[in-house]
C-alpha cells in the first residue's frame, strides 16, 4: 500500500507533520512505519500541546523518589516502604463502550503501578457524566460503574474512594479517571529504561488481537455523530489474566532478572518498545512473527497498533529466560522472546524474515512535534450582585433539603457498594468519607488517598480553580489525620487547538503548580486528555487531582461522623460568605455566573497544619472539610454518618444566614472536640492565628438552628440517600 498525504491524515496526522516525517526519514514511510509515527506523534502519547507547560510543574520534594516520566510516581513513606501511584483517563473509550472503556481504564492504571514492582493496595476513580436528564446518562453511569467494579473486584484490589459528578458539559464526552496506589519496597523499584546491548526482549501476558487498534489516535481526536462507529477501537478487558500477570510479574521481580519493564498501554507494542529504547538511548530489534497472536493473519501494522490488554514488555538479563518462562508457564501466560536490544538507536522490525520497518528512535521521541499553542487568558468574572430580595422568600430548611438532593451532593452509596472496598483486609476508611484509608499491611502505618475535581470553579476562573483542587485534596487528607505528601493529576480538557481551551489548560496548570509549591505537595505523575469535545462543544476544564498522605499510626485516624452527644463543634477558618459558583446559587437561585471562591494559600496552609497538629495531639474526635454545599451540608453529612444531631448556636452579628451556611469559602473544616478540651484547642488556634467559630453542640438526633432549621437525622438521611437510587431504578 502506497503511503500518501491522505493516508497520513486518515491516521490522525496533520499535513505538515507528514511532510516533517518524510523530511526526517529522507523518504516516504511505509504503512507500518506511518502507523508507528501516528501512534507516537498523537497527542495522547507525545503530549505535543501540553509538554511545554507541564515542564513548569512542581515535581520535586524531599519525599519524591520518582517524578513524572515513568510509568507512575513514587514517594517515600519511611522505613523501606514507598508508594507508587498515578491517575489516568479513559474518557473517549468509556463514552463509546462504557463497560469495557471503564474496565480497561482500571486495568491500565493498575498495570502502570505493578510494572514498577508495587502491589496495588487501593483504587480510586473520578467519573463525570452529562445532565441526569440527558438520554445517555443513565446507561453510561450504569455501564461505567459496572466496568470499574467488574475489573477491580476481580483483581481483588479495594476501591476505597471516588467522586461522581454531573454537568451538561459532559453530555457528549463523559470522563472516567482511574487512580491506583501501590506499595513497594524502596530498594526494589523497577523502571522502564532499557540498558545493555543484546539483552533479550520478552513479551508476556495475553495474546495480541485486533482490538484497540487506533485507540490512542481515537483518544486524540474530537467526536461527532458517527462516534458509535469507533467501537472497534475500544479494548476489551480480561481482569483474570491481569490478576495472573500481576502475580507472575511480582514473582519474577523478587530477584534480579529484570532490567526494564513497561506495560503495553496506549499504542501497545509501539510505544512500549520505543519508550524503553529511547530512555536507554539504545536500539531495539523485534521479530513480529514471534509475537503471540490471538488471530491468524495479523499484519505487522496490526500487531504494532493493537491495544490488546494485559501485556508487558520486559528486557531481561541474559540467561534468565528459562527461569522467567517457568514463572509465566506456572501462571498460564504467554511468554515469548521477540527481540533484543541493539546499539543502532533504531527500532527495527522484522516479519517473516523481511525487514518491515526501520526508524531512528529519536525521530519518534525527541523529534516528535512540540506545539506552543496560542491561548487566551480568562478574566475573573464580576461578582454577583445578590440583593436582600433574592433571599426574601427562602427558608433555610427547604434550601438544605433541596441541596441534599442535588445530584452532585447526594449520597453515592449505590455506586461504591458495587465496588469491593474491603478485600485485602486493610481498609480502615471506606468510600464516603473525606479520603479512603488503607493500612500498610502488617505495620502501624496507613495511606490516605483522595480524588477531587471542581470543573465549575475551573470554568469560571481556571487559575483559581486549579489552585482550589490542590487545596481541596490537601484538606481531604488532613481531615482523616494524614500528612499530605504528593499528588497525581489527570488533566481533562477540550480541543487545545482552540485558544479558549488551551488558555483553560495553561491557567489551570499554573494554578495547580502555584498551590502545589506553596503547600509542598509535589506532582509526581499524571496524564493529559485533550479533545474531550463533540460537535464543536467541549467539556468544562476538569483537572482531577489524586492526593496521597501518610498516617504514621492508624489508630489516630479520624472519621467525619459525629461521635458523642454534648461534644462541641467548631468551624475552623473564616466564613466570608462567598456564594458565587456555590451549589446554593446554582440550585436555589439558578445563577451560574460569578467568580469561584478565592484561595488564600497562607490561610489554607496555616489552617490545615493547625488542624493536623490538633489531631496529632488527640484533641479532635471527628473532622470534615467544608466543600460543596457549605457548612450546613457538611453538618448534615456528619450527622447522618454519626446518627447524631447538632444544636447550632445563634450567631451574633450575622448579616446573611444563607451566606454563612451555604457559602463555599475555602480553607475551612468542621471539627468535633470534647468539652474538656475546648480551652486547650482555643489556645492552640489563637496561638496560630487561626480563625474559628463555635458552631454548636452535638445532640441525640435533632439538627436545629434557632427556629429556622429543625430536622431529625432521619429526615436528612432520607433526603440525602434517595436521589441516586430513585434515579437509577426509575
Amino acid at each position: 500500500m502506497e503511503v500518501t498525504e491522505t493516508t497520513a491524515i486518515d491516521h490522525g496526522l496533520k499535513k505538515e507533520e507528514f511532510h516533517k516525517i518524510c523530511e526526517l526519514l529522507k523518504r516516504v514511510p511505509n504503512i507500518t512505519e506511518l502507523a508507528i509515527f501516528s501512534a507516537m506523534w498523537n497527542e495522547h502519547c507525545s503530549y505535543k500541546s501540553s509538554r511545554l507547560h507541564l515542564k513548569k510543574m512542581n515535581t520535586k520534594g524531599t519525599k519524591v523518589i520518582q517524578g513524572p516520566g515513568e510509568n507512575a510516581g513514587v514517594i517515600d513513606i519511611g522505613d523501606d516502604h514507598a508508594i507508587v501511584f498515578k491517575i489516568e483517563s479513559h474518557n473517549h473509550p468509556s463514552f463509546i463502550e462504557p463497560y469495557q472503556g471503564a474496565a480497561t481504564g482500571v486495568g491500565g492504571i493498575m498495570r502502570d503501578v505493578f510494572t514498577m514492582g508495587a502491589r496495588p493496595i487501593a483504587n480510586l476513580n473520578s467519573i463525570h457524566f452529562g445532565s441526569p436528564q440527558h438520554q445517555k446518562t443513565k446507561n453510561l453511569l450504569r455501564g461505567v460503574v459496572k466496568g470499574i467494579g467488574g475489573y477491580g473486584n476481580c483483581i481483588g484490589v479495594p476501591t476505597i474512594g471516588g467522586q461522581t459528578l454531573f454537568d451538561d458539559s459532559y453530555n457528549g464526552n463523559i470522563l472516567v479517571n482511574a487512580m491506583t496506589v501501590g506499595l513497594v519496597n524502596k530498594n526494589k523499584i523497577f523502571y522502564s529504561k532499557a540498558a545493555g546491548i543484546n539483552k533479550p526482549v520478552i513479551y508476556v501476558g495475553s495474546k495480541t488481537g485486533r482490538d484497540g487498534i487506533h485507540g490512542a489516535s481515537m483518544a486524540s481526536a474530537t467526536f461527532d455523530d458517527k462516534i458509535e462507529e469507533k467501537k472497534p477501537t475500544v479494548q476489551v478487558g480480561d481482569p483474570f489474566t491481569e490478576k495472573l500477570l500481576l502475580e507472575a510479574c511480582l514473582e519474577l521481580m523478587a530477584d534480579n532478572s529484570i532490567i526494564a519493564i513497561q506495560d503495553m498501554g496506549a499504542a501497545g507494542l509501539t510505544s512500549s518498545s520505543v519508550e524503553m529504547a529511547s530512555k536507554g538511548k539504545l536500539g531495539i530489534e523485534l521479530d513480529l512473527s514471534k509475537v503471540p497472536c490471538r488471530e491468524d493473519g495479523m499484519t505487522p501494522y496490526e500487531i504494532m497498533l493493537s491495544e490488546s490488554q494485559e501485556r508487558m514488555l520486559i528486557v531481561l538479563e541474559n540467561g534468565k529466560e528459562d527461569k522467567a518462562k517457568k514463572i509465566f508457564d506456572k501462571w498460564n501466560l504467554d511468554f515469548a522472546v521477540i527481540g533484543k536490544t541493539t546499539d543502532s538507536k533504531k527500532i527495527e522490525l522484522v516479519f517473516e524474515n523481511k525487514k518491515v520497518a526501520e526508524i531512528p528512535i529519536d525521530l519518534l521521541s525527541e523529534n516528535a512535534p512540540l506545539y506552543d499553542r496560542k491561548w487566551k487568558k480568562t478574566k475573573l468574572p464580576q461578582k454577583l450582585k445578590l440583593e436582600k430580595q433574592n433571599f426574601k422568600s427562602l427558608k433555610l430548611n427547604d434550601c438544605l433539603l433541596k441541596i441534599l438532593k442535588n445530584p452532585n451532593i447526594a449520597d453515592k452509596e449505590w455506586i461504591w457498594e458495587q465496588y469491593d472496598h474491603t478485600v485485602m483486609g486493610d481498609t480502615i476508611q471506606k468510600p464516603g468519607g473525606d479520603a479512603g484509608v488503607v493500612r500498610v499491611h502488617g505495620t502501624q502505618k496507613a495511606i490516605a488517598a483522595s480524588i477531587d475535581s471542581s470543573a465549575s470553579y475551573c470554568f469560571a476562573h481556571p487559575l483559581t480553580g486549579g489552585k482550589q483542587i490542590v487545596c481541596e485534596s490537601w484538606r481531604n487528607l488532613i481531615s482523616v489525620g494524614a500528612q499530605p505528601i504528593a499528588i497525581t493529576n489527570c488533566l481533562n480538557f477540550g480541543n487545545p487547538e482552540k485558544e479558549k481551551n488551551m488558555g483553560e489548560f495553561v491557567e489551570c496548570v499554573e494554578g495547580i503548580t502555584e498551590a502545589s509549591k506553596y503547600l509542598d505537595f509535589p506532582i509526581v505523575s499524571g496524564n493529559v486528555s485533550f479533545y474531550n469535545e463533540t460537535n464543536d462543544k467541549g467539556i468544562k476544564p476538569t483537572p482531577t487531582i489524586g492526593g496521597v498522605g501518610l498516617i504514621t499510626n492508624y489508630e489516630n485516624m479520624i472519621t467525619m461522623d459525629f461521635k458523642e452527644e454534648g461534644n462541641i463543634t467548631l468551624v475552623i477558618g473564616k466564613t466570608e460568605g462567598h456564594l458565587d459558583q456555590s451549589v446554593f446559587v446554582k440550585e436555589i437561585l439558578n445563577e451560574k455566573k460569578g467568580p469561584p471562591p478565592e484561595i488564600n494559600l497562607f490561610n489554607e496552609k496555616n489552617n490545615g497544619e493547625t488542624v493536623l497538629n490538633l489531631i496529632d495531639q488527640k484533641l479532635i474526635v471527628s473532622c470534615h472539610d467544608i466543600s460543596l454545599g457549605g457548612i450546613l451540608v457538611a453538618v448534615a453529612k456528619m450527622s447522618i454518618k454519626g446518627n447524631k444531631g447538632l444544636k447550632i448556636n445563634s450567631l451574633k452579628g450575622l448579616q446573611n444566614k444563607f451566606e454563612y451556611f451555604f457559602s463555599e469559602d475555602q480553607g475551612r473544616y468542621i471539627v468535633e472536640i470534647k468539652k474538656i478540651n475546648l480551652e486547650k484547642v482555643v489556645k492552640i488556634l489563637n496561638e496560630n492565628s487561626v480563625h474559628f467559630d463555635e458552631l454548636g453542640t452535638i445532640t441525640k438526633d435533632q439538627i436545629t438552628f434557632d427556629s429556622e432549621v429543625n430536622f431529625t437525622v432521619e429526615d436528612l438521611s432520607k433526603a440525602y440517600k434517595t436521589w441516586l437510587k430513585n434515579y437509577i431504578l426509575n
Partner: protein
Amino acid sequence: MKSSVIIFPGSNCDRDMDVALKKFGFKNQMVWHNDPSIPKSDLIVLPGGFSYGDYLRCGSIASKSKIIKPVIDFANKGGLVLGVCNGFQILTETGLLPGILQQNKFLNFICKNIFVKIKDKENKYFKNIKKDILELHIAHNEGNYFCSEGELKSLEDNNQIAVTYCNENGEDNDQNNPNGAIKNIAGIFNKNKNVLGMMPHPERMIDSYLSGEDGSLFFENLISNFN
C-alpha cells in the same frame, strides 16, 4: 491446629484468609491448585475470589481442578472444609453442598456489612459461639442461593441451614435479604456438618479498625472447638 488454604488462579481472598487463620492460632499453609495432594490438615479452606476468572458459572472450572479430588476425599472422610464466597460457589459446583448461587436479585455486585443469624450450633463451626447474630461482610455478584423444593426440605429437616441474612435483631425476612437468596440463606452445611459454605467473609471482620470484629468470634470459636 493445621489448616490449608487452596489458591486457585484468580483467588483473591487467599492472603486475607491466611492472615485471619494465623491470627487465631492456626498453623496455616497455602496450597497451589495444581498440587497433587494436600498436606496433613485439620481444616481446608476454599477462599473467595474469581477462580479461573469465573467467566463460566462461578466455581465451575475450579470444581474440576486437580486439587479438588483430594478436597472431596478429605470431606468424605469427615474433614472440615470451609468455603467462603467463591469457595461456597465451588463447593456447590463439586456437589459437596446442594443448590447453586445465582446472580444477585438486583443484578449488581454488593459490598457491605450485613447481619446473619446462626441457625444451628450442633456443629464444629458454631458450637459454643457467644453470639446468635453476627455482623459480617459480603462482597459478591452471585450470592443468591437457590435449590429445589426437595433440597430445601432436606436442608431444613437435617438442620443444614447454617446462617441466614437478618437485621441486627435477628429478623430474617425479605427486607433483610441483600441478594434474593431463598429463605435468606447465607450459608449451609452438608449432611454431616463438616462442610460449611457461606457467602459472608468472616476474615474481613477481624479487628475493630476493619468493618467489625464478629469475624474474630467465628475464628476464635472454631479453633477452640478443635482443642
